[in-house]
């Protein structure tokens, strides 16, 4: 089984003072033996969030190195993924970044791990139609 990891889970998993820390640890542990799939924007979002939260540059660099390692498969945000995200955004009325994660999950037939319950609902509601359109456009 493939898993797409939302930046929210990574940040909360590695932040003991985050509200959803325990839940993020549970989600993280769903995939102990396989890498997580992430879009290129994932590391940027994590770095931006940690910078806003006041982490030191050295620690952010450690996180960045970890996100480039064996636990993650980074997917380029190429035309196919953007085309898919457009369909998701159109049908699910999601934000653009969310649509990219969701399009990647659909492309890989992966489980999307996120702490954002609204996003999960959007995905469940729009997946069938979006999947069909995605296949036509990809």
């Amino acid at each position: 089984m493939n898993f797409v990891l939302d930046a929210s889970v990574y940040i909360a998993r590695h932040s003991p003072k985050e509200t959803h820390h325990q839940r993020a640890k549970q989600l993280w542990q769903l995939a102990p033996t396989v890498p997580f799939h992430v879009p290129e924007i994932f590391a940027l979002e994590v770095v931006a969030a940690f910078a806003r939260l006041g982490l030191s540059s050295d620690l952010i660099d450690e996180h960045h190195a970890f996100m480039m390692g064996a636990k993650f498969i980074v997917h380029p945000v190429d035309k196919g993924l953007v085309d898919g995200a457009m369909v998701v955004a159109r049908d699910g009325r999601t934000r653009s970044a969310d649509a990219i994660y969701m399009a990647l999950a659909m492309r890989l037939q992966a489980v999307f791990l996120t702490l954002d319950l609204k996003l999960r609902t959007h995905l469940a509601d729009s997946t069938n139609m979006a999947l069909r359109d995605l296949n036509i456009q990809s």
Partner: protein
Amino acid sequence: MRVSLSEAKAKLSEYIRLAQEQGETITITVDQRPAAELRAVAKVFRQLSPSEMVMINAFSDSICRKTVQQESFDVLEVLEDIRR
């Protein structure tokens, strides 16, 4: 993409190639109604080796212990700002 059963029979190799190479899902119809779908099997990516898993978990726990913010926060609010 939708095709009839007779089309599917005649061009099965072509449709399998489309599914594998372009991620296409082919809906096969019987009496003009969807009856089955043909799509590529989800690509299987590599497994982590036991030694990789140990290293990853250790590093993840280690980096977590160091990532202690001053105050509690909600990651969804932080991402809401970033993704706005």
